């Protein structure tokens, strides 16, 4: 794709912000605002993501703007990299399709006290160990088996369930968004089929773009913040990207069905049925929120289990307990979720339903939702890149609170379709090229490697540069990959 697919209006606000005016389409309640520089904007115009930013501006109760982050790309309904907030007291809606099928797909990052030199000769052992001990791939099942009663417990307790089983510590909970369990989960709102789909998948990575990565810090941006997080050049970090697996897909499917009927019932007009929604305060909206929270908690428990399995592999390879290896969680963030949050809108505090689809919460310093240890720095924001380039640790800012409901980007963002990537990428060449850069990749299938090739993604350095320069988050440090396990 070289020509521009999207030809709609984009008014330049400044070097990093572009407006789709409300007048673009009758039915838009607010303008669209896309965060990008000229280079990223070219990529954004090459698919229909900008049209989707305009489409979600139709949502009843939407406030301020429909936001697109610099990793914006074409999704199904809601664009990926989209942030939409609706005013609950003004008939604001919640949409299952605005969160997506992989509810609480998210990423966590843990540090170690190991330096690159200490693990250089052990990367192969670690990658093979992780590949063998952390279940991955489609429909993968975990060794962590739960009874139906326990599954209900997971949906309410989230990460705490895992910690109570011995798969982690209280400290891990403090370093997880919502402390690993969002309040108000309603297991009765989850269908039997969803339970069935989720029962064997706790502690499994899944497939597609989900991954586990060993990384080394290769650049420090803010010495003070790096000191606060105890991070230094060459330090080994681990990143885990996964979601709510089949349970989340089924919750989204069940409630998309019910919300399609809400469009007529509540007289809602949206340009795409995948944007089906219901007022947050309606029975359907409340039921979805209760079920979505269950799936979100399941995902946090899942990432907690994955981290436990990762710690065990490191223990085996280094012959030392994980505590001695300093394998402490920095933070865990959700990047597909809807949250009820308080934000200032036109000088008034409002209760909003903030949808982040391929977007990360980025609360600034002092926010009451943050644990004491991050009150001063702001919330850690974890931005994974593709397997050949970099990943970042950022922090949230006050500017994000003021502009984007405390939200920022979530990753690099795709630029090439999976089919185009598969057609054009030679997997053997790619693996050799990665190996020459010191990156070892192990995946369940060769297809995933081609689909997830660096060429299929925007450069995360460009994406992060925009959110940093515009001030909706702040760079702390950058990592480079050493070992990658793909689902």
């Amino acid at each position: 794709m070289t020509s521009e697919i999207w030809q709609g209006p984009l008014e330049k606000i400044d070097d990093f912000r572009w407006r789709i005016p409300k007048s673009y389409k009758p039915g838009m309640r607010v303008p669209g605002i896309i965060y990008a520089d000229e280079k990223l904007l070219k990529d954004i115009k090459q698919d229909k993501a900008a049209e989707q930013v305009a489409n979600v501006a139709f949502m009843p109760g939407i406030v301020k703007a429909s936001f697109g982050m610099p990793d914006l790309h074409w999704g199904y309904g809601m664009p990926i990299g989209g942030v939409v907030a609706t005013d609950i007291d003004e008939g604001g809606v919640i949409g299952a399709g605005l969160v997506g099928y992989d509810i609480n797909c998210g990423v966590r990052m843990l540090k170690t006290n190991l330096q690159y030199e200490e693990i250089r000769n052990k990367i192969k052992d670690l990658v093979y160990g992780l590949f063998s001990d952390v279940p991955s791939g489609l429909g993968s099942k975990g060794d962590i088996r739960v009874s139906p009663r326990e599954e209900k417990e997971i949906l309410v307790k989230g990460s705490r369930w895992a910690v109570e089983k011995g798969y982690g510590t209280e400290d891990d909970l403090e370093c997880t968004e919502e402390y690993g369990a969002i309040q108000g989960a309603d297991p009765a709102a989850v269908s039997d089929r969803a339970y069935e789909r989720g029962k064997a998948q706790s502690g499994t990575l899944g497939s597609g773009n989900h991954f586990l990565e060993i990384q080394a810090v290769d650049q420090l941006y803010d010495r003070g913040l790096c000191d606060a997080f105890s991070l230094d050049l060459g330090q080994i970090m681990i990143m885990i990207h996964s979601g709510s697996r089949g349970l989340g897909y089924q919750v989204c499917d069940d409630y998309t069905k019910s919300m399609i009927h809400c469009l007529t019932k509540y007289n809602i007009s949206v340009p795409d049925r995948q944007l089906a929604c219901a007022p947050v305060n309606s029975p359907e909206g409340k039921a979805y929120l209760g079920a979505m929270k269950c799936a979100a908690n399941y995902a946090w428990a899942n990432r907690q289990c994955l981290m436990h399995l990762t710690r065990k592999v490191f223990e085996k390879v280094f012959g030392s307990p994980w505590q001695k290896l300093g394998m402490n969680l920095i933070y865990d963030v959700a990047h597909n979720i809807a949250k009820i949050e308080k934000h200032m809108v036109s000088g008034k505090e409002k209760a909003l339903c903030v949808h982040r689809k391929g977007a990360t919460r980025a609360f600034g310093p002092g926010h009451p939702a943050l644990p004491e240890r991050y009150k001063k720095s702001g919330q850690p924001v974890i931005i994974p890149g593709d397997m050949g380039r970099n990943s970042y640790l950022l922090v949230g800012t006050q500017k994000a609170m003021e502009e984007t409901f405390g939200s920022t980007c979530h990753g690099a963002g795709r630029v090439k379709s999976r089919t185009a990537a598969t057609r054009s990428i030679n997997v053997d060449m790619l693996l050799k090229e990665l190996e020459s850069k010191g990156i070892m990749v192990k995946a369940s299938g060769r297809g995933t490697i081609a689909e997830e090739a660096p060429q299929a993604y925007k450069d995360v350095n460009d994406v992060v540069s925009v959110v940093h320069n515009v001030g909706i988050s702040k760079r702390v440090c950058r990592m480079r990959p050493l070992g990658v396990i793909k689902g």
Partner: protein
Amino acid sequence: MKNYELIEHTADIGIRVKGKDLEELFRNAAGAMFDIIAQRKSPRHHVTTSPVEKINLKQEAENLEELFINWLNELLSLSATKEKIFCDFKFKRLSERNLEAGAYGCAIKDYKINAEIKAATYHQLKIEQTKAGWQAEVIFDV
């Protein structure tokens, strides 16, 4: 020769599929979906060949598009819970608002998995009658 084409989409996978009648359209769409998900292992890799299991499905919807999406998503969901790859479909009844069918599932272990499809979506969904019969376009979340 595949009886479907892939449609370009940045993050996901779309297909265009045809059928001489609705039954064939529904059958080909489901067949295409499982063709994207998995490929039968060649006989030399077969450890065992498990018996094919028939699973009965009933779906109701308010219109043809909903029925089509429900059909595909129900099959995905059953495939996950029953650990089957569906390889054939027979309809007892199919109208624009309801269907009754048998889906024939083979054990997942007899297949090589290529991709995970989370769901069939309504985004840019098209089902239309053509001179030759029916045509549908659907985007899957992968």
